[in-house]
């Protein structure tokens, strides 16, 4: 039993190394990489690690290549990408301290919410137009390029912009849309 516990704690340490340290150009590791390193019970190991990270306000986040997967198959779990993300959220002060300007964050909120409303993709011109409602015209283009460079948005060769890996990993899309839609109502209720 003691030996088994030791093996399990070693596996959790290995999972920490895999998930916290960047191994590829993009952060996170695929399910199959975890399986290769941790063995067949890798999903249990990840679950235990997730519980241990809770007091530190961190969690293991799983992102599927295809959105809207509710009941994943083993193959989909193997292909999914796993990240360590914050369990809670950050306030404006903390966001500023990690290098984000408030208007940059607002611009990202507008871009992401607009793309969600268009089922995950929209022409770049349309996003620039709606961004220009909040930012000067030149900043709209510049900010859009920044969001693409940082992996929140992607752009194909037809100028169509979509939500990229980082948005899927970091943003609770449903919550964002709910907060935007209920904005005026909450103020009225208050």
């Amino acid at each position, binding site marked *: 039993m003691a030996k088994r516990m030791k093996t399990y704690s070693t596996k959790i340490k290995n999972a920490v190394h895999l998930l916290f340290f960047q191994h590829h150009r993009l*952060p996170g590791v695929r399910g199959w990489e975890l399986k290769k390193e941790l063995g067949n019970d890798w999903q249990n190991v990840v679950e235990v690690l997730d519980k241990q990270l809770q007091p530190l306000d961190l969690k293991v986040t799983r992102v599927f290549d295809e959105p809207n997967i509710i009941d994943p198959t083993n193959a989909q779990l193997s292909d999914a990408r796993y990240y360590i993300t914050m369990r809670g959220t950050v306030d404006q002060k903390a966001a500023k301290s990690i290098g984000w300007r408030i208007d940059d964050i607002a611009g990202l909120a507008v871009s992401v919410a607009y793309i969600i409303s268009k089922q995950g993709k929209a022409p770049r011109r349309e996003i620039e137009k709606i961004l220009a409602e909040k930012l000067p015209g030149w900043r709209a283009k510049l900010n859009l390029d920044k969001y693409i460079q940082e992996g929140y948005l992607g752009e194909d060769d037809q100028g169509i912009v979509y939500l990229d890996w980082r948005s899927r990993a970091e943003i609770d899309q449903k919550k*964002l849309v709910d907060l935007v839609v209920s904005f005026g109502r909450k103020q009225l209720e208050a």
Partner: protein
Amino acid sequence: MSSELESVISLCRMVHSGKIEPFDVDFDYIMSVIKKHYPEIKDVREFCLDAQALKEVSTVLENQNKWIAHQSTTLYKDPFMLNQQLINMDIGSLADAFLKSWHPIVEMEQMSSKTLSNSLGYWGDLIPLDERWQEPEVEAKDTRYATRNEVHELGIIPAEGFGEIIEKFWRELGDEAGEGGTIDYWKWIGRDTYEETVYRAYVTVFLVSYGYANIDRNPLLEETMITHLEEPRPNPEQSKVSIPVMVDYEEWKYWRKE
């Protein structure tokens, strides 16, 4: 026929790229256009166009299906209402909404044995600064004259004039494609060496620009054809159309294999 079907294809592609909503397309009208043209198909090109239109229509149906699926999810909110809200909200409220739904990734960058060994290798191969910053040794030399033959041998001036080269190519095209005939672009420019192939592609550009030949591209069959003009028509007033054709090394190797 082709223009109507091409419009249908273009309309369907606009749906796929998100420029228009899937249900904004009049599906019955599109099908009536395809049905109307189907009995009139005469050649392979028109048949391919018809097939392409059908394929694009099927992607519209797929997008309509996705649209319904999206509307039935908890993520769906009326796009118009969402956009109005985005416009009405101030910067601070937008940032707040985002931060309440944002869980940033936590990651650490670190040195690994691999990066250390790569760095060591780089350091070992680095030439010392005093060698790298050495001034180039420049030797003063007296200038002298070169004969025309020497300049030709060096390849600075071609042995024949450019007009003559164009005329020679035009006659060669006439021989290969037949007077007023058409030949496949790669069959015309492709030669045993890559250098010669690029040279022929370069001269062909002028052959077309100066009105000695026409170039046509069929995007559906991915074919580019060169047509020999029996009488050169150098007409500077005529509007020019640019057709970029890739003649890179990989493409040439692929052609050679074929």
